[in-house]
């Protein structure tokens, strides 16, 4: 059974058809890429699946559970984690707090314990701090743990955002342009980190990306989206050689 399954999803913003008849099957442990020109509707698809918008038509299932009509926080706790295109970090919280915040629903102590500092509360906090530090190490940002997120270099902020998404124990991780604005060095580091989390946490990954090198290297399957419609789907090689994809990116060969 597919881990995440989207069937014939269509969405209108007012009269504008942003996504048309979109389908996706994401198997456990796979990495699928979504590419397409600006404004094709890639982030809209992310927002529709993660519950920020509700699709006009269509069906979304995660492990057989219907996601339509659920709130983002419910979908998140069902096992979908995501990052954002324009880094959404909480500027004046520390890196460690970002990851611990993501462990919110795994913290089990009660509200009275929180006010009066019960022993159980301390134990829970310690357990989660250890978990958070381990995640930060995986993402190579542990040495920043007590710094404010806003003071980190850009690449490190991206990795904090991913660590935060991973801390919710997702089964599927959505990455919205994880390498936007990164230097080639940081790009290579990001590739190895994504490989690492993919193996270590056994998470399926669905990512939006513009850099073809990155997509070609990581993804098993690539969807190409143009004007809200998938015009091609296949392996990196197939996608690279697909005339429709080339046309969408580079324009048509005919000269009028």
């Amino acid at each position, binding site marked *: 059974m597919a881990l995440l399954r989207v069937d014939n999803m269509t969405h209108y913003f007012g009269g504008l058809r942003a996504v048309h008849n979109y389908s996706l099957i994401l198997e456990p442990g796979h990495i699928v890429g979504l590419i397409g020109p600006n404004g094709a509707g890639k982030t809209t698809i992310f927002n529709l699946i*993660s519950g*920020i918008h509700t699709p006009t038509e269509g069906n979304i299932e995660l492990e057989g559970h219907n996601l339509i009509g659920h*709130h*983002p*926080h419910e979908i*998140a*706790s069902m096992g979908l*984690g*995501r990052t*954002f295109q324009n880094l*959404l970090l*909480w*500027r*004046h*919280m520390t890196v460690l*707090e970002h990851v*611990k*915040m*993501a*462990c*919110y*629903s795994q*913290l089990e*102590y009660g*509200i009275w314990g*929180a*006010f*009066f*500092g019960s022993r159980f*509360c301390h134990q829970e*906090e310690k357990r989660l701090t250890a978990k958070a530090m381990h995640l930060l190490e995986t993402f190579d940002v542990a040495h920043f743990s007590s710094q404010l997120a806003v003071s980190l270099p850009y690449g490190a902020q991206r990795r904090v955002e991913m660590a*935060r*998404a991973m801390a*919710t124990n997702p089964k599927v991780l959505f990455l919205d342009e994880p390498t936007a604005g990164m230097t080639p060095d940081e790009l290579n580091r990001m590739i190895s980190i994504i490989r690492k989390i993919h193996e270590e946490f056994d998470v399926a990954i669905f990512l939006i990306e513009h850099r073809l090198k990155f997509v070609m290297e990581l993804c098993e399957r690539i969807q190409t989206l143009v004007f809200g419609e998938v015009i091609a789907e296949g392996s990196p090689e197939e996608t690279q050689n697909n005339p429709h994809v080339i046309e969408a990116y580079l324009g048509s060969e005919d000269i009028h």
Partner: protein
Amino acid sequence: MDLFLQNIVNGLQWGSFYALIALGYSMVYSILMLFNFAHGDVFMVGSYIGFGVATALLGFVALTGIPLPGWLILILTILFSMFITSFVGVFIERVGYRPLRDAPRASAAITGLMIGIILETGNLAILGARRLSFPQLIESVTYQFGGIYVTNKKILIVGVSLGLMYLLHRFIQKSKWGMAMRAMSFDFEVVPLMGVSINRIAPLTFAIGSALAAAAGILYGLAYPVLDPYMGILLGWKAFVAAILGGRGSILGAALAGFLLGFIEIFVAWVFPSTLRDVIAYSIILLILTFRPHGFFGQAHSTQLRL
């Protein structure tokens, strides 16, 4: 010199009320970007609930003959009233603010004013226009240190206030809900993806703010034992000024500015005729805000006042 110290003590007491109430304004603002203008009236309701709880406990003592000491009744009154009043806050959020969460901030502000009027006039309708006198649960004892006089009530008021502020500080800084509150003060978009619902954190914020207002209401009743339905208006507005002065949404700022406001009022009244107290005190605050429009701890980037 003695008079100076005496005024410090009085300022601390006044400041405690302002600080406790201002915290409620600031906490709600930091998350929902709106000022709950009914908060002063929540203070009033808290005071009345305190009155009710204390009366019931005294009645219980009279009925059963179990000799509960006054201080125990006071502690129970504070705890029960904070608990009950927190539901008033949750109710206000649910009925007044949640339906308007996406509406322009001005609508929410007007809603707050209307809820305030409903609470005041509702109280007037139910309990009548006669003023109530808050039962004196503990004997007033005056201690003398050198030339200054401190009553046990003053110590209690300042002590309970500081204690509550410390608990709140720990809650905000260390607990998962506190973390969620701080994170929500940045955005509503990402926090839900951590599995946290705004519909849980917003009521919690209102509940805590209202509980603090109730504590302030009872402590106020101890010091000035006359309750009337409009007692929350002036105090509420002044605490609102403290919340602005501390910096919108800043918890620490609200507490400090609350005490500062208390000091300013007391010291102005010491130097100038007391009829001019508020005129001069609030002129000073106006002057401070002219030079620090974001207050003491307000951050310029987060201050699009969406009112």
